[in-house]
């Protein structure tokens, strides 16, 4: 193999290694008994829908799965998401979702918090309501 070809192949491998990975499947889950419509997920995570009847919805972001969630569900990138929330927060006095580290933290939060909703890379076991799979 000529050195020039080796350089190209090595560079492409390096570039491929640097690309951010996006999860295959995403599961949107809420606290047991909280059943929001799949069409409301976008509104819930952008602060437009804050209540389900008398229950206050508490969405949380999942740091590990956020890029996939923004791309697949909210159809926006991280900058647009942050800007949207900055405007919303400044206009309506509503804070953006708290950020959890991974599936385990999100699942634990959803189980404990009435109105809690979050997204997971792994299908959750019993104890929560799965709203949608993406």
């Amino acid at each position, binding site marked *: 193999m000529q050195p020039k070809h080796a350089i190209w192949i090595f560079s492409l491998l390096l570039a491929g290694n640097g690309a951010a990975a996006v999860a295959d499947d995403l599961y949107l889950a809420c606290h047991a008994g909280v059943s929001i419509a799949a069409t409301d997920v976008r509104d819930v995570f952008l602060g437009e829908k804050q209540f389900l009847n008398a229950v206050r919805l*508490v969405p949380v972001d999942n740091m590990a799965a956020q890029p996939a969630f923004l791309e697949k569900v909210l159809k926006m990138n991280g*900058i647009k998401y942050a800007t949207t929330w900055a405007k919303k927060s400044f206009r309506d006095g509503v804070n953006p979702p708290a950020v959890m580290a991974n599936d385990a933290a999100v699942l634990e*939060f959803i189980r404990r918090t009435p109105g809690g909703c979050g997204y997971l890379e792994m299908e959750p076991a019993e104890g929560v309501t799965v709203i949608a799979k993406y």
Partner: protein
Amino acid sequence: MRHFHALVGWAICVLGSYCLTQPTFAADSRDDRVTVLEEKLDRSLKLIEQLTVRMRELEVQLANKGTAAAPAQSAAAAESSPQTQERLENVEEQLAQLTDANAARGGGGPGVPLHGFADVGIGNHNANEPELKGANVGSLDIFLNPQLGEHTRSLFELTFEVNEHGQVESDLERAQLGYQFSDAATLWIGRFHTPFGYYNTAFHHGQQIATSLRRPRFLLFEDQGGVMPNHTVGAWLTGADHLSDGKLTYDFFVGNGQAISSGSIDARAGGVDRGSAIYGGNLGYLFGDTLDGLKVGVSAFRSNISDDQQTGRITRVDNAGVYFAYDTDRFEHIGEFYRFNDSDRTLGGPAHRSSAGFLQLGWRLPLAMPYLRYERAVLDQNDNYFALQAEGMSYFRTAVGVRFDLDAKSALKLELAHTRNTDRLIEQWNDAMLDYAIRF
């Protein structure tokens, strides 16, 4: 030469690879922090285990020192393990509850979320003080919105600005406490942005959020020369209701009637000494799938306004407006038009009609966001409401600008504009300005 090409190719690939790896580096940084926290937690748990063992040993030693009750104490020492385990579980439960409470409150961290905005500028004219030029400090805007409970909401905005004399002034621009009944209804009480049109409630004092370098001149804040009552102190009911293909938004408000004092509008945050009031509303429709991003609406208000030039005089200001906003990933187009029909309630006489409006077109391009804006205000100078305001003259302005988002929280804006005052003091000037705005 082939070596040269190979080197150039190598450099391009490495650069591309570097760019592609940036998000991963950012994610790695976050993962590192999480890892560090997990390690600290592990160390803490190990310490707790060590302390538990040590405590058990001490309890056993104390039990052995006893004489008659020695067997019973030994049994108690033996039972201390499940008790300790129970205590540990209680501590863990409390820790989890604290974590959940923080998350449920929003913001993801302990304490009250603190946000803010700031901007600085430079130009041949100050953006809001055309008689000044050079570099200027725009404003420092501190913004607090602590979440106090499931239904209670709050919002405070404290702004520090430099006036035309170079002195720092502070203003409590917004101070609102609200109760959110549901998604369809929130009642705010305090000082808020008067919900007329679109611009006044969509964009606030933080200039980083707004696309343009400055607000339309007639919509400037009261202390900057705007002629609209941008702030109201009173009560505001607002909400939205989802319909089949969109969302209906509404606002109703009532508050202290403003006063004109020293040439500018005063929201009278401390209360009024007579029965004058402002009240009005705003109805809008935000389209869903078919025209996603388009909002259209109408608004109206009536305010009974006093002034410091003639005791007891009340000028009734009737304002009606229409607006639209088209905000998508590619465009931000905004248009507003207002009609005034004002009358002197003390002396009577004919009503005075005036109008003001603007059209702003913006395009979201990959590297920048250029915008165009045309403003026009035709303000009757026989109307006390405008005649008593220092900047209440008619004008038109054309502006072209561009906004560069340097990152998610900072923007650089350039604007060229031509302004002409068409009555009272006829003059015209050209602006070339730069503004650097951030949020945090």
